[in-house]
């Protein structure tokens, strides 16, 4: 740790003195190499540049690569990891030679007996990049948004800085490892508010392989540019082929940096021309449900306690082998619930049994400290928590509120496509029962055709052209579903249902979504959304 901070000091010194002028040849290298990286040129294609443009003096790819690394002062940290990507050999697994989960060897030995890691996790430290932002006049100015440009008005929610998870920290002493320090959260206008995101993505169409990129966002920047390409801070990608079992071990290097950033790191503020202690706090973690369940060490959306916000119990489809648990509010007619004395028959949507931080941590510790395996599994199933997350040591995060549900997957990737599957009779082979919501195939085809016909006259500022939902549903992106739902659906579905009440129910959803997407949300709006969704879900269950 001491050595590490020493190295870091040297790096920050380097950052401060390196910012001189670049030579013409360096600029030429940077231009060529930026072009290569932007356009994904292969090394072979890059080697052709001097022949294609003889007047441009571009050295070989290796020279360029090492020059770029030198000029950036940014070197990836390489951590060995399990060949099946179960865990990273960092933190508590640092000295292991076998993966504790799949028992695979960490090293491979060549003929001379020299050992080599079988797989490596490439981690990019983010502190040097935050430090560099304050040495850049434009970025340093933009970073003042949180402290100076954003004005909090009570009763209005415009940005994360109006939220409970941020405001509860203001004026409070920073707590590190159970000890309060002398400084307060966000007391310096330069204190950085950070958000972490991860997601599984499959690089290949025909393979199950997934990789889990880690990405950091700087919330000090104004919302218009916060998520821009140059402002996102990639931390590297957890290599596949499988979903990591022990995500915490991969998050270890980032966790170390978050801890250091809470204490403060030396940085130079170009605007006031002074050295200062740069501090930063992680306040949000987001992504889709499987990703966040992994990060929080929860059992996920199919478990007995599938919701990370409340303790609602899931029930299974009777007489079925499927282990998926579903969460209706009213399960009074379910055979298992009827037989059980203790099971709740109907949950009150206005008073769900919300999870609290203290309780979640207590449950997590209980699961961790149980050494009997059967008992451990039983407990973790009951609570929906598999263990203590490494992020729970960061007191700037609040469990579960700092891990909100993601609107994009929730609405555009799940709710709307599921409603359409219901309307077209394709939802899990379910008929309409006593309902009257299914469309005749001809009706749905007509709606599809009308969607396509409408596309030609919708100005492009609204977004990309939505494809035909009847014939080309796989081409729908989350954005296309949002355009279809918000602007086309209300018109195209009018008078199409055999019964008006399904249309009214859909329109009520659109109205609520519209409020959720407003740039400014008042306390009354929140109340409307709360009451509206309670009514909507209760109606959905009717």
């Amino acid at each position, binding site marked *: 740790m001491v050595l590490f901070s020493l190295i870091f000091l040297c790096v920050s010194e380097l950052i401060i003195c390196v910012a001189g002028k670049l030579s013409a040849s360096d600029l030429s290298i940077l231009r060529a190499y930026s072009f290569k990286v932007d356009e994904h040129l292969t090394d072979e294609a890059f080697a052709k540049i001097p022949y294609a443009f003889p007047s441009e003096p571009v050295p070989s790819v290796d020279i360029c690569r090492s020059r770029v690394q030198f000029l950036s002062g940014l070197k990836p940290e390489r951590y060995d990891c399990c060949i099946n990507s179960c865990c990273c050999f960092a933190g508590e697994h640092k000295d292991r030679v076998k993966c504790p989960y799949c028992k695979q060897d960490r090293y491979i030995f060549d003929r001379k007996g020299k050992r080599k890691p079988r797989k490596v996790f490439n981690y990019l430290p983010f502190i040097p990049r935050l430090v560099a932002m304050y040495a850049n006049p434009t970025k340093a100015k933009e970073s003042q948004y949180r402290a100076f440009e954003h004005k909090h008005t009570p009763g209005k929610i415009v940005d994360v800085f109006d939220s409970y998870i941020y405001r509860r920290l203001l004026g409070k002493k920073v707590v590190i490892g159970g000890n309060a320090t002398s400084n307060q959260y966000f007391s310096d206008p330069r204190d950085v508010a950070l958000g972490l995101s991860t997601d599984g993505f499959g690089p290949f169409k025909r393979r199950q392989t997934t990789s889990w990129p880690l990405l950091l966002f700087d919330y000090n920047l104004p919302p218009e540019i916060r998520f821009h390409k140059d402002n996102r801070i990639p931390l590297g990608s957890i290599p596949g082929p499988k979903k990591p079992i022990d995500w915490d071990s991969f998050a270890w290097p980032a966790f170390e940096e978050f801890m250091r950033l809470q204490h403060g790191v030396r940085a130079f503020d170009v605007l006031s021309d002074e050295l200062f202690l740069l501090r930063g706090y992680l306040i949000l973690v987001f992504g889709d449900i499987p990703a966040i369940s992994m990060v929080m060490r929860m059992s996920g959306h199919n478990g007995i306690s599938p919701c990370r916000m409340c303790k609602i119990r899931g029930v299974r489809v009777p007489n079925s082998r499927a282990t998926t648990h579903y*969460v209706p509010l009213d399960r009074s007619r379910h055979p298992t619930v009827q037989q059980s004395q203790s099971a709740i028959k109907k949950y009150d949507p206005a008073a769900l049994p919300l999870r609290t931080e203290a309780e979640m941590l207590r449950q997590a510790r209980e699961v961790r400290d149980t050494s009997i395996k059967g008992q451990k599994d039983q407990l973790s199933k009951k609570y929906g928590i598999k263990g203590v997350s490494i992020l729970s040591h960061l007191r700037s995060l609040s469990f579960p509120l700092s891990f909100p549900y993601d609107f994009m*997957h929730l609405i555009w990737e799940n709710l709307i496509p599921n409603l359409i599957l219901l309307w077209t009779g394709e939802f899990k082979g379910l008929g309409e029962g006593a309902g009257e919501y299914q469309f005749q195939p001809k009706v749905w085809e007509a709606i599809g055709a009308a969607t396509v016909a409408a596309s030609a006259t919708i100005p492009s500022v609204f977004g990309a052209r939505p494809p035909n939902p009847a014939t080309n549903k796989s081409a729908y992106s989350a954005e296309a579903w949002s355009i279809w739902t918000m602007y086309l659906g209300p018109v195209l579905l009018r008078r199409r249902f055999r019964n008006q009440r399904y249309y009214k129910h859909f329109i009520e959803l659109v109205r609520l979504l519209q409020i959720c997407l407003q740039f400014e949300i008042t306390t009354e709006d929140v109340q409307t959304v709360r009451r509206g969704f309670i009514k909507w879900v209760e109606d959905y269950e009717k």
Partner: protein
Amino acid sequence: MGRGLREVSKFIYGIKLLPSDEHRMYYQYSPDRLSTCTVTVHALLHIADSIEASGPMWAYWAFPMERYCGSLTPAIRSRRFPFPSLDRYITELAQLTQIKMFHQLQDALSFKAPKHDSAGQFSDPACEYPNRMITYIYSNTAHRPNLRVTSSM
């Protein structure tokens, strides 16, 4: 549903009066239709709390993350070693961003025609046509913008 039938259903399920058919929606309180009640429907009940606790939906939705993942897919140039090639791309991109930050090269390395903030500065409110000003027009081929006079109504 007739009155008699209602009595029957009351008897069968032993619960209070079921909603009549004209109110039936999707789940219909039927255990066989349980699969309509997914966690995503339940999660709607947490949206209002979430806005108050964590801020507006756009501040933490997955669009920026998905966009980033989308930008990574073409970076995988090797089918045999997909992850090292991915790591190299992420690293090099971060290094270039860092250099841009040190040397204020954001514009120079953006490979786009420089932004002209000067557009509009030639307008003269005192002249005969106060709504006329000089702006730039862009075309795909011309690197240097041409000048033309447009109306800024």
